[in-house]
């Protein structure tokens, strides 16, 4: 990869990540906050736009790659993680940020999430969790609360919502956090930490859908969120982390860094081909005559 060393780098600001078009999200949508914080976090880490790739599924939140100046892939509904795994393994010099919604990541895509977490793929996965399907105009999502009325559940949802943080902590994610798009400063920090983490980082973000979710609004979260860092939480303790993951009440919905584990290698570090040869896309192609002869000899 052609890149400049840190010393020569021009100073990078959030503006460098300004995308080619303005987001077409509804005015007030929580996703604006995530986008803005992400641009700032990238700038704070001194990433150059071409070193970053954002990869998303399908949904309002998954439109994010179109709104930021970086490489991007806007993939299929629910499939951002395997695509991102392919990108990361093919070029582990890239900073890989996956963005999407609760339906995309915890619904149709949850199988890939389970496996990406246990494999510890080195990427930050930001789920803009609005507890609803936004793009398809308001149906129940896997995080919709019981009783919520949506177009697909006009008499109230009865399926127990999924707890993404508990799933991640018990499922092998090595960095697990939750932000709120109404808490920009903390969000910015969480984004930076998640990107810096070597391994799979899940960042769930409360990102209200002002158009279709009339229950979990900014006000709803503002009243309830409590920062973990303000209460002496120890993110290296999985028991505490799970305890907090199961905390959800009118008095407290915790946000912040729930859990981190620095002891496991990231997936690309377990691949001998990558450890020997560096990023795959820069390695040479094909089989030498000598190697080839060895392969044929095995057949005789």
């Amino acid at each position, binding site marked *: 990869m*052609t890149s400049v060393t840190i010393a020569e780098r021009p100073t990078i600001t959030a503006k460098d990540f300004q995308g*080619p078009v303005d987001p*077409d999200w509804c005015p007030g949508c929580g996703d604006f906050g995530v986008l803005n914080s992400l641009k700032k976090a990238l700038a704070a880490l001194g990433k150059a736009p071409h070193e970053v790739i954002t990869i998303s599924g399908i949904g309002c939140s998954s439109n994010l790659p179109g709104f930021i100046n970086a490489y991007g892939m806007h993939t299929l509904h629910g499939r951002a993680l395997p695509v991102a795994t392919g990108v990361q*393994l093919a*070029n582990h010099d890239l900073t890989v940020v996956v963005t999407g919604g609760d339906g995309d990541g915890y619904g149709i895509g949850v199988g890939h999430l389970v496996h990406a977490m246990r494999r510890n793929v080195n990427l930050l996965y930001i789920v803009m969790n609005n507890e609803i399907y936004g793009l398809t105009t308001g149906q129940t999502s896997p995080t919709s609360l019981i009783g919520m009325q949506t177009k697909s559940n006009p008499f109230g949802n009865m399926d127990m919502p999924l707890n993404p943080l508990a799933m991640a902590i018990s499922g092998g994610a090595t960095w697990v956090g939750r932000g709120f798009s109404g808490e920009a400063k903390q969000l910015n920090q969480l984004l930076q930490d998640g990107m810096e983490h070597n391994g799979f980082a899940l960042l769930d973000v409360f990102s209200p859908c002002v158009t279709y979710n009339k229950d979990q609004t900014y006000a709803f979260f503002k009243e309830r969120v409590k920062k973990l860092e303000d209460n002496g939480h120890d993110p290296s303790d999985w028991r505490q982390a799970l305890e907090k993951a199961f905390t959800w009440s009118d008095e407290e919905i915790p946000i912040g860094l729930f859990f981190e584990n620095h002891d496991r290698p990231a997936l690309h570090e377990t691949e001998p081909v990558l450890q020997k040869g560096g990023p795959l896309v820069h390695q040479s192609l094909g089989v030498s005559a000598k190697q080839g002869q060895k392969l044929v000899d095995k057949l*005789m």
Partner: protein
Amino acid sequence: MGGVYAYTDSGTARNNLTDGLDAERNYMSQFDLKIAIGGAAGQGIASVGNILARIFARRGLHIVAYNAYQSIIRGGHTFLTIRVSGDPIATHGDTVDILICLNQDTLDRHIVNLRPGSYVIYDGEKLKPLEAPAKVNLCALPISELAKNPTNKMLSNTIAMGAALYLAGFDIDPLADSLTQQFSRKGPQVVEENLGSAQAGFDFAKEHFSPLAHTIPAEQQALPVVTGNQALAMGGAAAGVKFYCAYPMSPATGVLHWMAANGPDLGIVVRQVEDEIGVITMAIGAAHAGARVMCATSGGGFALMTEGIGFAAMTETPVVVIDVQRAGPSTGVPTKTEQGDLWQMLGASQGDFPRIIVAPTDLADCFTTIPETFNIVDHLQCPAMVLTDLLLSEGTGTVHPDVFKWDQKIDRGAMITASNGSNGDGPYLRYKLTDSGISPRAIPGLEGYIHVVASDEHDEDGILISDEFTNPHKRQAMVEKRGRKMEAAAAMIPAPQLEGSPGAEVTLLGWGSTKGVIQEAMAQLNADGVTVNHLQIKWLVPLHSDEIDAILSKSKKVFIVENNYSGQFARYLRSETGFNADGHIRKYDGEPFQPHHVVDGVKELLKGKLTQYVPTHEIMV
């Protein structure tokens, strides 16, 4: 009435069960030997087959082996046929010269099909043949006497091999070498037991029987023995595949196993993924990042990949997917062959978009097709499906060592891999509207080429025209741009060639893996006085419709041979050309065609009473 079954209602005949096995059909080499080994899963049949195959191949003989097996690990019935010839061969043939029976079930099933002069080898102390056809030589071995260690059950296989080698007219040395090599890691005692037992079997046969009458060709350069799946994997390596991912599925798993074993040495990252959706999307991710990427599956796994195929097409990402067909629909018969996935390939994913579909025609072609296909998809930036089947992918045979060309041309097409790449004037447009429809693609990580690729419809610069900026004119232009890419495709591949005499009575038309069986049937028919020529289709999309039409319109009678129920190729060919064949030879019982099935079919169809002939498989497996 019609529908997808349009062709299938026409009168259909069955061959008589024993028809076609009586006649002598040794029209090829002076030396043509068929050994079959039957028994239960777990009795070591594959290993007998491997040892014999290597023995013959090492002295430069050509072999083809086909294993009729089942989806169980122990028990059931497995029947492996290995044919050996002085000339190149392409099928396991029609008949059996030496039948090795490892259990009673095998004796019962197969003895009835034996021809005069053939041998059946079995444990005379444990097994009892039913009444055998006339002049079949019953070679009952006194296994417990011959075995050098009564507790080692596997020695009976060694004894049988010794006997078989004598009957085939070979000497014992190559078997001894093989056994030594095979068992040396188990210690000298096991080697001794095996050598002694092999010799005992050999000697017993020598004492009681005279060998088959044929001339054994002089020793030649050793030939490699390969399966279709191995050849596909090696083709991938030669083509510069850097990322291989898959989810296990019979009969495609052999590609994964080869890659897993050899990938680390060759600098190929190999990943087993959680499912086939993950496979295709991970493959697309790695391909977008710049690697050459391959994956393989079978029909059910491919079904899960279809959404991803459309995604590759829309983002214009080159990726090669191998589909090894097995008997369907659904889970079907996982260990049996069929050519039943063609329409799944043609219809994979919604909407219109360019795709390549290619069906390699033999083992060597499995290797060659992969680099060819990668150069095409890199040029066109679209997905390709390589369509093989169980017969070809798990089939085993010798190929000439020169087939494995390691200095393949690797042409990555219009690809920008460095920041000083050929961007031209103005900002980089990932989906630039060009005359060819091909737009140079830049891999992520380069300064100056930032872009977003999307499964949504987009403009030249990649910005979506599916949301705020919908625009029917831009949409139309993008559909046409992608479509235009196919104009270059046909020129990148050779048109199919008619083999045999142009004026023949019958043209046999096949696709993919049936090449060998049709060729052999053609030779037989020509020998029988029915003049036949042959057209085999490898490249299905793009299809050289005009060239094919030109050939077929000159043919007197065209019979289409395919290993499926509904005539998937016949229907596809008609959709492209309007061409109606005169007759159809089809098989859909899980077993492959043997040459005589085609021969019988041609003769039957020529009588003019039928338009479709469906042989009944004689060998009960």
